[in-house]
Structures are given as C-alpha cells and as structure tokens.
C-alpha cells in the first residue's frame, strides 16, 4: 500500500482508469476538503491492481475501501486478487440508486464481504425559520474540552461501520466551526447534534440523546437550535438506517422525505 500525498494523485488515478475505458465506476466521491483532511492525517493509501485502483482509508481499527475501476467485472476480478491484511476489517460503502447498487453489493458478497447495513438518504427543502426566542439555554456549542468525551459518547452508542463516527480530529474541527451542539448535566453529556454546512445545504450527521435523559426533550431542543443555526440553508439532508422506523418517522415529523439514494454497507471481517 502506498500513501496518497496529494489530491492530484487521486486525479491522476482517475485519469489512468479513464484512459483505459473512457467511463469509470467508483465509490470514492470527490469532496476535496474532506480528502485533503484525510491526506493531512496520513490515513489514505492506494493499491493499483490491473484496471482498478483501490483506495484505503484508515479509521480507528478498520479500513474503508474505495475503488476506481473501468467497469464492474474488472472490479470483481481484482477484488478477488486483492490481498487483505489479517486482523483488520474492511468496509465498503456502495452508494447510488437502488437498482445501480444491488449488482455491486452482490459482487462484493461473492468476494467474501457480508451485508452489514443499508442507509437511506432523506432530504427536505426549507419551509420555515426558527426564532431565537424559541431556543433553549440548555443547548450550547461544544468546546475543545468536550472533544474526547464526545468521541467516547458516540463510539459507545453508534455502530462503527455504518454510522460514520467522526474521528477526534473531525470533532475538534466541528467544534472550531461551531457545528457541534451539546447539552450537559454536570459533566455528563445529555445529548448532542453534529452537523455540516456546505453552502446552502445542511447535513445532519449525528443526533443523539443520552438514554438517561430521554424524557427531557433534549432531542427537540437540539434540532431546533440546529434549524436556527441553518436558517440560511435551503436544503437539509441526512442518512438513516433504512429499517429504523422510529428515526424515520421522527425525521418525517420535521419535514424530511426519503430519497432514492441508498448506501449499502458491506464488511469483510479478517
């Protein structure tokens, strides 16, 4: 595995594959800011196999696996030839519309990956704004001292393969950008909400209430503050487990609707 040192190397890899076949298939989406963050963290690596370029991203104790391939048959051939280091798990997110992703996830399954979870994307266009007077003083911006407790809070409660738990660095970045809201009781985290704003789009990434505080309406206070902070956004998106009916109905209550985009999470345990 070779370390990726610049965004240019990613472009060169895409170019190599496109020269072989014009078209290409990939699950490596081009978010330059995020990719540059990963490069800075020295967590991106690449392996070239025939007509496929694999990209690995180290995340805590497992790797995300991405591919850039001329087509699916080449991808499955080279996936079979890929040597996976022992004692590490590999996670592949297959993102697309349902009919496009089924074939790919079946191919991964035939190469030893197992289906772990499926997420659906939900979205809403802005309908109304939240007034400052409706906000609760219990909700505040997280501070740098909260970074490690927030990381622990999330890792204890979320599924590490499917729920894209942010690293401590990402949490620190969110704190700097005031995109991490928290509610605390003494020193205990009662609930938190983590989001990203990209232009006029607000991405709700994590929204979690401590099971000991479920009766205190912390969740609703958090999301109200989130909507207030995103009053200038016109599009709101999030990913949710497709079978999590409780969460889906909660999001629908706030105006989110299901999209056709889904993320099938495949895991190879070594």
């Amino acid at each position, binding site marked *: 595995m070779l370390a990726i040192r610049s965004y240019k190397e990613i472009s060169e890899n895409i170019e190599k594959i496109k020269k072989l076949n014009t078209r290409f298939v990939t699950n490596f989406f*081009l978010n*330059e800011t995020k990719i540059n963050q990963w490069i800075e963290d020295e967590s991106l690596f690449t392996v070239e196999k025939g007509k496929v370029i694999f990209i690995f991203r180290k995340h805590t104790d497992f790797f995300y696996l991405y591919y850039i391939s001329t087509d699916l048959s080449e991808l499955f051939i080279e996936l079979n030839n890929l040597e996976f280091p022992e004692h590490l798990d590999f996670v592949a997110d297959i993102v697309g519309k349902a009919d496009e992703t089924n074939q790919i996830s079946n191919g991964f399954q035939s190469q030893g990956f197992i289906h772990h979870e499926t997420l659906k994307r939900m979205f809403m266009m802005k309908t109304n704004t939240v007034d400052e007077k409706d906000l609760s003083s219990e909700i505040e911006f997280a501070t740098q001292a909260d970074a490690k407790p927030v990381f622990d809070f999330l890792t204890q409660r979320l599924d590490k393969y499917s729920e894209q738990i942010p690293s401590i660095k990402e949490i620190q970045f969110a704190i700097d950008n005031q995109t991490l809201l928290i509610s605390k009781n003494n020193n205990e985290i009662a609930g938190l909400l983590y989001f990203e704003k990209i232009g006029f789009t607000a991405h709700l990434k994590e929204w979690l209430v401590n099971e000991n505080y479920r009766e205190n309406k912390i969740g609703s206070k958090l999301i109200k503050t989130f909507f207030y902070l995103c009053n200038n956004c016109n599009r709101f998106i999030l990913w949710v487990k497709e079978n999590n009916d409780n969460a889906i109905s909660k999001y629908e209550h706030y105006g989110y609707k299901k999209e056709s985009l889904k993320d099938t999470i495949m895991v190879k345990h070594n």
Partner: protein
Amino acid sequence: MEKILSILNSIRPEEDFTTSEDFISDGLLDSFDLISLVSELDENFSISIDGMDINQENFKNLDAIKSLLIKNGAKL
C-alpha cells in the same frame, strides 16, 4: 448552455442552477453528484473528460462547465 442545464436539472431537479455562481459552495451539487455529472457530460457530449480535470473548480458554475467541455473537445 441549455443542454448543460438540462443535465444538471436531471441530477438535481429541485435546484435552480441559473442563479448560483458556485454550485459546490452553495450546496447545489455534492460529492455524489459530481461523479454522476462527469458520466452524464461524457455521454451527452461524446467526450471523455480528462481525469486531471475532475476537480470542484471545473464544475463550480455554468461557465466553468462550458470551458471544461470545450477543453475536452465537446462541440457546443
């Protein structure tokens, strides 16, 4: 421009691409959409966009996409 707009609208029907100067920063297109957009532009203009040109700057607005297509041999 009409053809580019129609491709963009097929990817994100709910957005108005005529009023934004930066589709990425304004959140009209996200990282998932960029890959679909490259494929759609390749197919509709019978070209193969150079991999080195696939960066956010080249897809930021209608003029940037037009220049990218011309650079990659599209007949507009």
